[in-house]
């Protein structure tokens, strides 16, 4: 039998296959106690699949889920002591807020007085006391999310899973709630996995990001690592807004340059033609055309443009890729 020494959550060669389709392909991941890991990727990349496997809601085709060295494979979802916040929040529509929170405790046999104490504490922490008699249908999106969080916290979970908990909220509320959510969830003992397709949210919430595409892990690391040192073209394109420029400079080599790393330079090696400008207040985005393809450049909002702008960049910011496989090519590019 395999025994792991490390504390926290560990996924080993985890696979999920349905009807001959690989939803998740040999995923290896480790999440330390108290760490918040964001699972990031486009829809259908396998992030929600991963969560369901960890929760035990779906069976794994192969591989293991280990918590503090213990294999969870044989345990039912209820026995795993996992809490999950669903995208839809999955509140029981026929029960009040109080009823939603109490049901699990009652079923697990927590005595009345103890139940009231824990319920009161969580209601207070999430400022839900005044809403305890309301039905989910009578709550706003943000309030429903708080109830779902409260239910997850009451579970006193050994693993906390969040499946796009913000995607039903409007953009402004999402930004406001992020620090709140981080304060509530992270830095406790349990590992946290936060699934999202929004890179801003991933960067804002997580200590580390694991980027998935088509069921495969592309790269895992701190936001800074993924941004500065992407493992392949997919990672480079997915992280960073506006997206990275890809220039087909030479056969067999593709140059990636982020819009924020290009600057206007009279003697720059790249001649371009201005198509359009977007003014963002603190910055402006230039849409340019060049002989190697379209370009996006971020620059100072007040800068005036020559009719035939030339662009330059620093060699350290060059990212080289294989144009066919998208693999990262290390080493120097051609000399200009």
């Amino acid at each position, binding site marked *: 039998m395999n025994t792991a020494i490390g504390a926290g959550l560990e996924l080993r060669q985890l696979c999920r296959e349905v009807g001959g389709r690989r939803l998740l392909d040999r995923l290896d991941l480790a999440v330390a106690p108290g760490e918040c890991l964001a699972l990031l990727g486009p829809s259908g990349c396998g992030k929600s699949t991963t969560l369901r496997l960890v*929760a035990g*809601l779906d069976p794994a085709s192969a591989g293991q889920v280990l918590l503090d060295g213990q294999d969870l494979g044989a345990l*039912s*979802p*209820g*026995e795993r002591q*996992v*809490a*999950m916040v*669903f*995208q*839809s929040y*999955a509140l*029981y*529509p*026929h029960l009040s807020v109080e009823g939603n929170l109490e*049901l*699990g405790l009652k*079923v*697990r046999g927590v005595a009345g007085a103890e139940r009231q104490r824990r319920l009161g504490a969580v209601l207070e922490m999430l400022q839900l006391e005044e809403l305890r008699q309301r039905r989910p*249908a*009578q*709550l*706003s*999106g943000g309030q*429903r999310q708080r109830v779902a969080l409260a*239910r997850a916290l009451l*579970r006193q979970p050994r693993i906390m899973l969040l499946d796009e908990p913000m995607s039903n909220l409007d953009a402004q509320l999402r930004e406001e709630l992020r620090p709140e959510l981080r304060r509530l969830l992270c830095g406790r003992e349990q590992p946290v996995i936060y699934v999202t397709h929004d890179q801003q949210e991933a960067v804002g919430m997580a200590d580390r990001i694991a980027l998935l595409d088509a069921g495969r892990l592309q790269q895992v690391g701190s936001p800074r690592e993924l941004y500065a040192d992407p493992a392949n073209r997919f990672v480079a394109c997915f992280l960073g807004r506006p997206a990275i420029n890809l220039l087909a400079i030479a056969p067999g080599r593709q140059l990636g340059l982020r819009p924020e790393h290009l600057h206007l330079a009279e003697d720059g090696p790249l001649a371009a033609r201005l198509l359009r400008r977007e003014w963002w207040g603190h910055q402006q985005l230039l849409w340019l055309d060049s002989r190697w393809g379209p370009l996006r450049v971020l620059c100072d909002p007040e800068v005036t443009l020559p009719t035939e702008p030339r662009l330059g960049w620093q060699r350290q910011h060059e990212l080289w890729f294989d144009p066919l496989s998208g693999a990262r090519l290390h080493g120097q590019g051609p000399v200009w």
Partner: protein
Amino acid sequence: MRLLVLLWSLGPLLWQLRTSLLRPEALVAPLLEGNPWTLANYQLVLSGDPPFWRYLGNSTLVALATTLLTLLLAVPCAYGLQQQRGLLRWGVGLGLVGAAMFPTVLLFLALLEIARRFGLANDLLALSLPYAGLSLPLAVLLLRAAFADLPVELEDAARLEGLDLGQRLRHVLLPLLGPALASTGILVFLASWNEYAIALTWISRNDLLTLPIAIARIGGGSVFTIPYGAFAAATVLGSLPLLLLVLVAQRPIVSGLTRGAVKG
């Protein structure tokens, strides 16, 4: 427009009520003299032996037992079917549709044989066995569709909180299925209430007859008179419990119809 629909559905009922209150002579031609209205039809029906209420009770007992038995069996079947994927669910579903459409006429002889062999004749509770069997396919199909409409995450959330299957059904799924259970129950109740042929062959004792059989046995003054008025009076009395039932069950059904519509 609404009035038209109302008339369309209420019309036959009102006509029946009118027929039950008219003197037999007034049915065929307008009376030249005297009051055409009478309660004699009701007196005739209620003065029979055994009393009419007895038949009403018999039918209620059979229908209640049938409904209870059907729902008790259909809920686990529907849940289990909904958990299956692909070909199995499709195949069993198709089989159920086939069973629901199977002509009951072809079953009489076999059912009669069963009744004789197992001594089930003249037993009201035993009568609910074939009734439940006949209602079951449709009930399973209806309830499966209702289970399919519940968001999967609700049950997932309950599983994560440690609720076992029985607790999930009791605390989460069945309360949400209330409207579907009520409407399915009414359908089953009605089918059993109206059933004629099986009751005719299984029940022979006079005091155990169900309503449709009892009504059919109401006789006229002679072989050549058909007591329309008495028939009408008996059907009016016989549909009163149904009206009551629908009134009681209406609230959960309507609230179920609108629950999903309200979104915050």
